[in-house]
């Protein structure tokens, strides 16, 4: 089920809210309500995969208990290792097996049949959350959950189940057992949810039409240089508002039920270096890799060669996490190399000093990365980049390029402005003003929010294009 769908907005969410707040005040019962709702939510798209989810919950509950019981003993590490293998194996079978066999088949090692395995939605997210739970219990960063239903709620909680953010167990460990959604939480959750749905439906979905057209034209060898840039920029904004919008909705929904998830995005396109970009983009994933891979490998406390190795490993894994395609691996390695360059050369310091150059440099390199990320194959990615650099046989612009530019100019401008922290600055400016002015501004803001919500619903009711990029991961 998509958050950006009328069935979610007007049937599922109201029902869950009514049952959650209207029928019980006991924390335990409320957790059960949320767990059942979450499993129903997950089963909506692919009912059979809910079994995998239940197996994963059961297994990780057991691993958590075992790791907790033998925490001070060697056995704990043994169970920890088995847990990691178990989780990665499930993810590996569904996500990577076909890809691996396909490649082995191409080099003649595998002669058998390559099975086409359907991917359970959100498997990468809930696998990482499961691992986080057991490791945090092992590290003592969160109490072990004695009730398997609570483990189920942590892993399967519907707001973050399908496309993150990857909620670390330590973040919500206390709230699973004891939480209270205040009026302020609920209201701010609503505001956040509406902002998210606006980003997703009004911006991302519109930009998706341009980006998809560009990549379609490219496949048909009808892409002009201008359209190549337009498509790449549109995709750059699309993916931000798609994933960022989804994260906003997830954070907002979490707050409505008293959960406080960490931020997942912090205006990444305002970054002045790739290092800074990754501190602002998909924060929950990069911090997961930092805490569960990079630091255990030695992090920065080892010699430069090993540091470089650690960075490389983390970014290769980041690429692989995103999908079973060489494009994702190259994308991860691309960022790994850029981060290494920034870390071990003068470039990093130079970028800190030259803000404008830093912005341009970051945006251009990130733009290139999204082309690699979006393309179906590596050869198509490189060919697309060549089109951007002037190798387009169709010339610089044609009527179609102008049409798409003209038709989407307003959305591109709005999206570009919204991707930069102007609203943060306006808020900071308003905070210094009198209460009266703040109230007026809040009222105007709320009217705008109501407008955004209604327009988003209008687009959903109309049945406009509604893809969700991160569902594939």
């Amino acid at each position, binding site marked *: 089920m998509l958050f950006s*769908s*009328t*069935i979610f*907005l*007007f*049937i599922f*969410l*109201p*029902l869950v*809210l*009514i049952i959650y707040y209207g029928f019980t005040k006991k924390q335990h019962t409320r957790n059960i309500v949320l767990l059942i709702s979450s499993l129903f939510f997950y089963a*909506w*798209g692919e*009912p059979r995969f809910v079994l995998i989810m239940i197996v994963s919950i059961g297994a990780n509950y057991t691993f958590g208990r075992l790791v907790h019981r033998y925490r001070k003993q060697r056995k704990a590490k043994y169970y920890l290792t088995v847990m990691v293998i178990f989780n990665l194996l499930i993810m590996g079978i569904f996500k990577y097996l076909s890809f691996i066999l396909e490649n082995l088949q191409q080099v003649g090692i595998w002669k058998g049949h390559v099975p086409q395995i359907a991917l359970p939605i959100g498997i990468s997210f809930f696998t990482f959350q499961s691992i986080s739970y057991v490791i945090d219990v092992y590290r003592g960063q969160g109490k072990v959950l004695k009730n398997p239903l609570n483990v189920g709620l942590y892993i399967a909680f519907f707001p973050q189940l399908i496309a993150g953010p990857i909620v670390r167990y330590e973040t919500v460990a206390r709230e699973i057992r004891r939480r209270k959604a205040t*009026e*302020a939480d*609920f*209201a*701010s959750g*609503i*505001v956040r949810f509406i902002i998210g749905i606006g980003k997703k439906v009004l911006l991302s979905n519109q930009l998706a*039409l341009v980006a998809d057209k560009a990549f379609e034209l490219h496949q048909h060898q009808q892409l002009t240089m201008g359209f190549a840039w337009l498509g790449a920029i549109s995709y750059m904004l699309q993916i931000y508002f798609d994933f960022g919008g989804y994260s906003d909705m997830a954070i907002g929904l979490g707050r409505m039920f008293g959960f406080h998830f960490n931020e997942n995005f912090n205006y990444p396109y305002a970054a002045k270096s790739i290092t800074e970009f990754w501190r602002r983009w998909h924060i929950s994933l990069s911090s997961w890799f930092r805490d569960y891979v990079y630091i255990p490998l030695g992090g920065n406390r080892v010699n430069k060669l090993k540091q470089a190795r650690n960075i490389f490993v983390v970014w290769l894994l980041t690429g692989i996490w995103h999908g079973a395609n060489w494009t994702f691996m190259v994308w991860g390695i691309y960022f790994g190399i850029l981060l290494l360059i920034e870390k071990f050369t003068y470039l990093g310091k130079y970028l800190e000093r030259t803000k404008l150059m830093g912005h341009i440099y970051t945006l251009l390199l990130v733009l290139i990365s999204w082309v690699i990320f979006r393309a179906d194959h590596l050869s198509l990615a490189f060919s697309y980049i060549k089109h951007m650099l002037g190798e387009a046989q169709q010339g610089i612009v*044609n*009527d*179609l*390029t*102008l*049409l*798409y530019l003209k*038709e989407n100019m*307003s*959305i591109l401008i709005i999206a570009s402005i919204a991707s930069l922290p102007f609203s943060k600055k306006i808020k900071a400016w308003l905070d210094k003003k009198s209460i009266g002015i703040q*109230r007026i501004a*809040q*009222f105007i803001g*709320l009217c705008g929010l*109501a407008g955004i919500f*209604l*327009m988003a*619903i*209008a*687009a*959903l*009711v*109309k*049945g*406009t*294009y509604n893809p969700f990029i991160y569902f594939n991961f």
Partner: protein
Amino acid sequence: MKKNPYQRVIIILFCTFIIGTGIMTILNSGQAIMKVACTEAIKGYKEQGIKGLEDGFIKGLETSINENIVGRTSYINLYGLSAKWLNKHYIQEEGSNSVVKDSRGHLEFITRPVDMKPYVEEIVGLKPVFEEIGSKVLYIQTPVKVIEDYVKMPQGITDYSNSNSDQLLQELEEGGIATLDLRQNIKRSSLNLDEVFYKTDHHWTTETAFWAVGETKDYLNREMDFYLDPHNFFTDSHNYKKIQYKNSFLGSQGRRVGKYYAGVDDYTLMLPTFDTEYSVKINKHDIISETEGNFEETLVKYYLLRPKDIFINRYAAYFGADFAEVIINNKYSESPLKVLIFKDSYGLPFSAFFSTMVAETRLLDTRYYTGNVEQYIKDYQPDLVLYVFKSINTQT
């Protein structure tokens, strides 16, 4: 968020809105929603077993909730308004339903290039049958909304409706089928080209369809030796009363973008002022309906005209919809001719007016008719066969 007086207001408004919309939708359309979901589930099960059942139910439910949501038309209006604010001329939709605003501010669908050969072969293939039973055949190409040298699509959008029709007509002529290209006639006519089509629909107006009947009659009499309406009585608009429904109609494109994007159309109903006596039989798949009475009583469906909802398809006021087969017997006809009309939706008002001139008119819509067309022709033995299409490849 700091504690402020708006917090409670936000919560109350949001919850009331989503809960209220959900309840109202279920109360108003719960049965219809479940019916669609179950139908889709059964259809899915028949095609793909259990997987199809699940997918069909979920898809059916999601789609029907979307289509039955309370206030749906207001949301569509809002969508169109926002598109207008953003100065959009090209509203993209999946499939072939993208809406384009042309140089006059009228709405268009985009026609893609189509290979017309299979359609030509189908018609030409029936030629021996027509010859065997002595039926004369005429393919009537209706005007298309993107009138050549008059209507311009936005830069970058190419419409192929004219080139498709050109190819079709040329190949039909080569196959020995007579054609009447009303696209040319309309440019020579005294009609105001801005008013020959609805601005929010791809169909011709009632008046244009009436004009087309006159043009067809003239052609048949002049080129094919018929003797239809020799006194120009049935094709004289003065013998009809016009009832105008002002600002009452959003056409196929208009219904996708609402009333603010390109405005609302007027709909005109034309009714004969002379005496008529009809019996009409409509084959709606498994149900056959029969009515007797005058033109108005048998052909006009007022349930599509009386409600004030502008989203109702008033264009189908003649006959009510496209049906597999319609048989019209005109008891006061001066001509004994039997006419078979193969049609798409353009044929609805056209056939209604054409029926005033002949004894029997049959409409066959091959999108819905599942019988053997060749056998049908042999059994019926029409004097005249007309093909009335805007685009013969249209499947919806």
